[in-house]
């Protein structure tokens, strides 16, 4: 996994709440291998019309937001299906940071497991940020994981919280399986105990 420390890029706002992962990437595209690349499929059915032409009203089709690498969303972005291809599609498109008031739990986890940063901000702060991006399309933000700040708006730096485990994982890009296997003796001890306490589980 590629480490993440800091990103300066155009940010695009998405105002609708409850954008589900079926909308991020429709189910019919999930069967291709990871290597095939999911970027062109991102938001496919709202980004392109039935003939494959870009829909002018979709935010990422607006010239000012086309190169966005940061998405600022509304409540519960990434709800619904557990499909990790939603994160793959975002990352393959170039989006490495999503900022919003809340995210679907599984989507949030999938972000961190792939080296994408999901930043949870208070609803009012996220809404304020989206307003800035709408008023000044093409605004560039800097998201710094080390200092846990977002800068680039006229106002003060926005500080964000992130748990130490996820922060460390992103900063180091560590392989989580390798890390967990360091606990192998504890896992084996657990299994031995479980065989005594719940032998019917095998």
């Amino acid at each position, binding site marked *: 996994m590629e480490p993440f420390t800091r990103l300066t890029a155009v940010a695009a706002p998405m105002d*609708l*709440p409850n954008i589900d992962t079926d909308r991020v990437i429709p189910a019919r595209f999930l069967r291709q291998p990871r290597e095939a690349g999911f970027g062109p499929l991102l938001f496919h059915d*709202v980004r392109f019309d039935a003939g494959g032409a870009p829909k002018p009203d979709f935010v990422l089709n607006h010239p000012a937001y086309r190169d966005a690498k940061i998405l600022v969303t509304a*409540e519960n972005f990434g709800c619904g299906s557990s499909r990790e291809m939603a994160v793959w599609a975002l990352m393959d498109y170039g989006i490495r940071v999503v900022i919003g008031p809340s995210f679907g739990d599984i989507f949030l986890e999938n972000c961190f497991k792939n080296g994408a940063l999901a930043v949870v901000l208070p609803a009012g702060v996220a809404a304020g940020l989206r307003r800035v991006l709408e008023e000044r399309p093409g605004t560039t933000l800097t998201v710094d994981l080390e200092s846990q700040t977002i800068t680039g708006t006229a106002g003060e730096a926005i500080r964000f919280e992130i748990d130490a485990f996820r922060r460390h994982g992103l900063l180091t890009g560590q392989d989580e399986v390798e890390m967990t296997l360091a606990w192998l003796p504890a896992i084996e001890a657990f299994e031995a105990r479980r065989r005594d306490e719940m032998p019917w589980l095998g």
Partner: protein
Amino acid sequence: MVSQPLTMFEKIWRRHVVAEGPGGQALLYVDRHLLHEGSTHALARLERKGRPVRRPEACLATADHYVSTEPGAVVPTEPGASPIADPEIRAMVADLGRHSRRLGITFFGRGEPRQGIVHVIGPEQGATQPGITLVCGDSHTATHGAFGALACGIGSTEVEHVLATQCLWQRRPKVMRITVTGARPFGVMAKDVILAIIARLGAGGGVGHAIEYAGPVIRAMSMDERMTVCNMSIEAGARAGMVAPDETTFAYLEGRPLAPRGEMWPRAVAFWRTVPSDADAVFDRDVTLDAAALAPTVTWGTSPQDALPITGHVPDPSTVGDPARRASMERALAYMALTPGAPLAGTPVSRVFIGSCTNSRLEDLRAAAAVAKGRRAAVPAWVVPGSGQIKRAAEAEGLARVFTEAGFEWREPGCSMCVGMNGDTAAAGERVASTSNRNFEGRQGRGARTHLMSPAMAAAAAITGCLTDVRTLGR
């Protein structure tokens, strides 16, 4: 010393912590891992890295998302003879079989009598049990919480991690109790109860929570009904949904192939009796719902939270103050082609889908058949049983005959039209009365419009060709 009263969630969590990590994360041991075709991405990565699977015997795999449910379709073992026309879809199913054989994981492919939807076959085989942790790379894994298990849907990287380590890093969620009181009126099924709960909480209302469903209405439910309720926990954003195990749970499990047997059975039951929340356990949030006030429910929008009684009307966005909510309602109504203020009942539908991990079990099929019996479907209507076992049971008790005589199509088990990924899709502009769990834009096919409802309500829609209050068709 008086020990502190604990919730069921807390008891299961504590029992499964292998190690505490930084930032409130815990390494949890996973007792059971269910796999389907979507898990092949993770299996392929493991193979590439040359990593072994820690406990293949804790895994159970089935083909469901991508199999054809065409009547009579079986996937022959001969390559090239498969009825699945699309080579990529065929490869997904074949790949799961290959990995399962390679790793020694039990696999139910099409043609295997126990094949079916992953959240149907886990309980059916007795793999799902009280007090365990269970994961699956699918968001509806909360279904298994109906047995008093901690069951979570996970992503593909986490599937790989569980296969390699039999553990999962988890942040402790908050715990919410939803108590359903009163008595369900005639015509109100488990599906109506959970749709009403999601409408109350909102699509994000359960984010960061595990839900325990409690109260007399839940206690009186069968296992099939409890599974319907827990199944849709994710539609309120919750990470897990659970019901305390009781005599209903034990009676369901006894004698199932993977359930404890012989002298293990009484030991397991004795343990399972300790799983429910202690009487004075404290929850982070408590919600109460009166079932007596419920009616058969349908969704009108593109989020499962957009649910109303069938006696209601399409809501009017212009009456909503919050601009974000108004914009999303307007968008949903445009997608659904519905007019504000119009009565929901009477909205014509193009087709009906009875199936999915929410409502494809024997009791669901019985409820639909009771409505269909002696009547005739006015629009194309599919019935897709959740598993081979359910299909055979429904045939044995005459339900399949009822459906086919009423002009419904009786199909092979699988996810089918719940999700537009396997060839079973609705066309753009078609309006579907569906017993599945998601009415998202494009969920059943690009441009398809989904109304979620109970199996009885879906059967009623098939008979009349429009959204219908099943109570008006009589008992």
